[in-house]
């Protein structure tokens, strides 16, 4: 069952190490899985530290929820 008003997305976090543990790398890619979208991958951002990854995830969630939404709030 797919509802037309469904809005969903996937965020893929690829992480890897280059030349030891100091070489942390990440690429965050999103896929808009809402009905009517082609499911194309878009790079959300790249990062060289875990904290940068968390910032990117937070920013992406805020954008997904829309203007005025607080990603820290509990929707229930």
């Amino acid at each position, binding site marked *: *069952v797919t509802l037309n008003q469904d809005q969903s997305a*996937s965020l893929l976090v690829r992480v890897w190490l280059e*030349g030891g543990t100091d070489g942390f*790398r990440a690429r965050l890619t999103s896929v808009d899985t809402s009905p009517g979208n*082609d499911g194309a991958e878009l790079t959300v951002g*790249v990062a060289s530290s875990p904290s940068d990854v968390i910032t990117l995830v937070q920013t992406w969630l805020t954008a997904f929820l829309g203007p005025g939404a607080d990603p820290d709030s509990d929707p229930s």
Partner: protein
Amino acid sequence: VDLAPATRVALLDGFALVRGGTTAAVNDLPRGAQRLIAHLSLCGRPGRSAIAGQLWPDVPEELAHGSLRSALWRVQKVVPGLVDVSGGALGLADGVRVDVREFTDWARRVLDPHAVVDSMLTPDVGLHGELLPGWYDDWVLLARERLRQLKVHALEVLADKLACDGRYGEAVQAAYAAAGTEPLRESAHRAVVRVHLAEGNIAEAVRAYNAFRELLLGELGVAPSPLMEELILPARLGMAPARASDAARRPGRSRSLPPRA
């Protein structure tokens, strides 16, 4: 009905079904049937409950099983003999070829340290095609990522094996294909540099290094790893033009300069 030997399922670059050398009418297969075939192509021989749960995760179990029965009936009608039903499990019939499985077999041969490079003809579709573009089910996204990782690792190893065999043209193509899969992946760029160095193209190696270094700096604000620096250092030293000021400070290296008039 045994149609399996002449049947091939293609999932890379989009869903297609080829029977006897001609593309079957995929349009006759509703999306649910296509998803069933694709899932069996990727997952082997899962049980009915597992399939129903993966393909229809948002509906009650009973409804999911009903959708599975409907999709299976449609597949059996349009492509008889494609799916083998035994007990509580479903799978593609013996002899059905799947491009993803062929690509995976190829990649595993490449990654086998004992495999010789002669038998490694590159499957174009596997290198350039994406798994089921436009499909965004969770099981597809995960399989797509798994294939992507397999591809990039295989390409890096292939580049080195081809270079060792003196096939530098193919080697550099493989290395650049790996780098193109993830432009920030340093091990892929190291493969590019290694191939250039192996061929004796010092300037190309340094150019590739510089391009990667600038990319890394621009995107992440970081420098290449010590592994990359160690790899390129001899080439960079060999290419550095001698300067009069350096020679004055280090007279022992002044032999590379032309004699003063």
